């Protein structure tokens, strides 16, 4: 490809950051110096160079981690090395929230002001930071540190949450949750900390240690600390069994278990596995760990608290489906999960266990909710903008790199070892007829003991709230958000509905990512709805018109209602909102647009929000 570059050149530091990942440039054509070996001739061509585009996101991470922003010179060098057109690479870098394309402070505090944190004082925290550090993102170009508002960081049980990222020779992250203004200020001024997160994982799992637990049984135990300890706690038994009984036996167990995907779409896992296993040619396994749905943190807890189990499950899945390479796409806001997962993968590799299945590679996201959509995730891994693809074709037919791909959520995969060890039929007997197995629920908001809870399918929303110690705050429940920002609000009299796929459907809600977020009666629900509308406006990828413009028009309309300045009457606005909601759910490309109005719709149908703005 004949590429054209601007005259910006990389600094030595930037060059080193890229070379540290890709190795030194072999020829001048690839941005290096003329070497004797190749005598200035092209040393790479064809597929070998064009086939490197999938390294774009890791290279951008390397640059950003080193200098705190993506400079024109560094981008040029990355493009020269990977043979990517600079305009396209710019479009990719500009897609992600965590990348800055203008000179930026090396240390950034990302302060979550999303719904769960908002209910626990995030706005107050932001005001305090404004007083002490100045307005969000306002640090001058060469300032040492700054703070920005962030969408949900997946630390809802520890709200209000802050993630501090630092660039430099050794990029670092620090999770501060729960956090306050002195904490954040101290971290911004002190620089590199020792640990990414000092809070033990088991503090996010109030049930930790209970013998009845299946998916969460190793959280807080020594079994998650090393591969040997994992093996001693019964780990690897499922992988051994799978290798012994064969791929087809594994597929039959997964089919018999009636397991359905835990990422939100509830697609039968066995059907996916069988489809990929029977496809020929190269194929891939992708573990979707881009958990970004506001209020959702179960996958983070699994990866941080039982990383070997996640890797073992991926090994089993790739063995059963015959995948030649596996990727786990972890959201960029999950530094500790990334560290622990990488350590577990390295241990598996060192023990020779990956030779039994296939190599496993971590890919880090960089702040984009949409990349949790499976086809957007493929594009992100491939080095393109994280825009969803049109379906069909489905991932099992043409997924990552256009090949058949098995894509499963972390929690879905975590169910596989128990399925194999207990047998698919025994697993299917747990829970209800149409919702089998144990399930993780993300409880946050106004609760006495927020955290990840494990329960068999069939429990009601009320049971879950009671499990978490009941409603805190004022103690008087106003509403419960279930399923996430793309889910639904329930009224206090709907809480006896079983939190199963069929039970939720019956009351017009969805299981989604199993979020249960109660709000007490001190919360301004209108403001929560506005935050949800803001979220979708910010996270729409911008590809299709219904979602790109619809999420904006929805947000503007709610803003008008909230401030009491409707165009025409409130009723007129409600009709317009109905139209906006319908076109988004009918005509958008992907699930983000389809569900961008569902929480708002459900709340307006149940609660007299905005009615006081009627003049």
């Amino acid at each position: 490809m004949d590429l054209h570059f601007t005259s910006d050149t990389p600094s030595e530091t930037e060059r080193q950051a890229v070379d540290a990942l890709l190795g030194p440039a072999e020829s001048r054509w690839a941005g290096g110096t003329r070497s004797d070996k190749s005598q200035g001739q092209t040393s790479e061509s064809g597929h070998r160079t064009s086939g490197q585009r999938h390294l774009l996101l890791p290279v951008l991470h390397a640059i950003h981690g080193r200098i705190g922003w993506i400079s024109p010179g560094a981008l040029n060098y990355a493009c020269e090395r990977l043979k990517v057109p600079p305009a396209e690479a710019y479009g990719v870098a500009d897609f992600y929230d965590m990348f800055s394309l203008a000179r930026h402070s090396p240390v950034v505090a990302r302060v979550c002001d999303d719904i769960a944190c908002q209910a626990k004082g995030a706005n107050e925290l932001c005001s305090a930071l404004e007083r002490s550090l100045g307005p969000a993102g306002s640090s001058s170009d060469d300032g040492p540190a700054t703070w920005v508002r962030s969408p949900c960081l997946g630390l809802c049980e520890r709200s209000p949450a802050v993630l501090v990222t630092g660039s430099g020779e050794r990029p670092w992250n620090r999770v501060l949750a729960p956090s306050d203004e002195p904490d954040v200020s101290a971290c911004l001024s002190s620089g590199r900390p020792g640990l990414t997160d000092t809070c033990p994982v088991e503090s996010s799992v109030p049930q930790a240690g209970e013998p009845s637990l299946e998916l969460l049984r190793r959280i807080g135990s020594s079994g998650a600390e090393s591969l040997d300890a994992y093996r001693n706690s019964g780990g690897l038994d499922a992988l051994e069994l799978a290798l012994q009984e064969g791929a087809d036996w594994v597929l039959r167990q997964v089919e018999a278990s009636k397991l359905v995907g835990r990422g939100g779409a509830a697609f039968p896992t066995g059907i996916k596995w069988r489809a990929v296993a029977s496809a020929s040619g190269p194929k891939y396994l992708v573990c979707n760990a881009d958990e970004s749905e506001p209020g959702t943190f179960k996958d983070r807890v699994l990866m941080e608290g039982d990383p070997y189990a996640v890797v073992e499950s991926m090994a089993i899945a790739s063995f059963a489906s015959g995948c030649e390479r596996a990727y786990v796409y972890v959201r960029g806001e999950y530094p500790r999960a990334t560290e622990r997962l990488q350590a577990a993968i390295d241990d598996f590799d060192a023990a020779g266990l990956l030779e039994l299945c296939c190599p496993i590679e971590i890919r880090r996201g960089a702040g984009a909710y949409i990349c949790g959509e499976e086809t957007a995730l493929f594009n992100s891994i491939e080095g393109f903008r994280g825009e969803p693809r049109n379906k069909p074709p489905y991932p099992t037919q043409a997924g990552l790199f256009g090949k058949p791909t098995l894509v499963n959520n972390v929690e879905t995969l975590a169910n596989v070892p128990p399925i194999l060890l207990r047998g698919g039929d025994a697993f299917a007997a747990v829970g209800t007829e149409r919702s089998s197995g144990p399930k993780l629920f993300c409880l946050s908001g106004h609760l006495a003991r927020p955290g990840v809870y494990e329960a068999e399918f069939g429990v009601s929303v009320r049971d879950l709230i009671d499990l978490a110690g009941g409603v805190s705050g004022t103690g008087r429940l106003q509403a419960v958000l279930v399923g996430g920002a793309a889910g639904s609000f329930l009224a206090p009299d709907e809480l006896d509905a079983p939190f199963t796929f069929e039970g939720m459907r019956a009351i017009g809600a969805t299981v989604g990512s199993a979020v249960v977020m109660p709000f007490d009666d001190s919360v301004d629900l209108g403001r929560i709805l506005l935050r949800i509308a803001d979220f979708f406006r910010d996270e729409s990828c911008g590809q299709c018109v219904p979602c790109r413009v619809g999420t904006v028009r929805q947000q503007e309309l709610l803003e008008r209602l909230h401030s009491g300045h409707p165009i025409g009457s409130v009723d007129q606005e409600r009709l317009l909102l109905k139209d906006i909601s319908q076109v988004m759910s009918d005509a958008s490309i992907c699930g983000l647009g389809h569900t961008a109005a569902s929480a708002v719709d459900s709340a307006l149908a149940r609660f007299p929000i905005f009615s006081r703005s009627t003049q």
Partner: protein
Amino acid sequence: MSDQSSADAPSLTIPIPRGPVPKAPARKVRPPVEVTVDGTSVTVPDGSTLLDACRQRGVDTPTLCYLETLEPVNVCRVCVVELEGSRTLVPACSRKAEPGMSIRTDSERVRLSRRMVLEFLASSTDVSTAPELQDYMERYGADSERYGDDGRPAASQAQPPKIDNDLYIRDYSKCILCYKCVEACGVDAQNTFAIAVAGRGFDAKIATEFDVPLPDSACVYCGNCIGVCPTGALMFKSEHDLRESGEWDESKQQTTDTICPYCGVGCTLTLHTQDNQIVKTSSPMDQEVTSGNLCIKGRFGWQFVGASKGSKAFADGESTED
């Protein structure tokens, strides 16, 4: 090959194949596909899209981001139809026709989505030079006024046109983000990759790297992006200047097809003239040599026409010809 060279000396004689010469495998002829469009059965060749089926049935389906010469990106969603058994509407332009599919092209749901898409676009961009889009708006009763001031282009997307070269301008306040220019600049035609989509959501935009002016970018000024732009966001500088001075008048314009005089490829060139002056050029989309594409010379190299000998334009024209 490598076995041979390591074991024995390589043989230079070409082995004569024994037996009959193998024939090319017979081409698989797939049966045509029968689908139902608004209750009437239509048969289309295998591989056709629902849009092809609609067109064959004579159903006029609006499209904005679709063009026969480009890979469908199905982003504008104005062509959506109701497919029986599908939870959501589907884009006709990219959805392949499958046997037994039944679609409705004018149901209440379809009309609502099309109307809303058009309202959304007109409420956020300047559609004054997009006659096709205006026609659709009228057909579907789209009212972009009901979004208030927030929805006006002024409040969201307004910006002065980017005029950074003498050949064409980019007025992104008119851009509906249909991706056509990106496709034409990239793998679907020119393979230059000077522009791409940057940003995200409502702030997504077409841009060069770091928004550098075109002369600093990879742009080769083929103008194929202008050829596919449905809204006039990309426009010949000559047209832009005439519009600015109020002289642009399509009723006074003629088009003349000719062959580009520059090289031996033989591209069909359509000259658009007003007052006996060439005001812009294009190439027919259905022309098999060009598929609507041209190069910088065919697209822009006509300033010397009508220029007096000795003028700068004449001299520029001569030097271009070299």
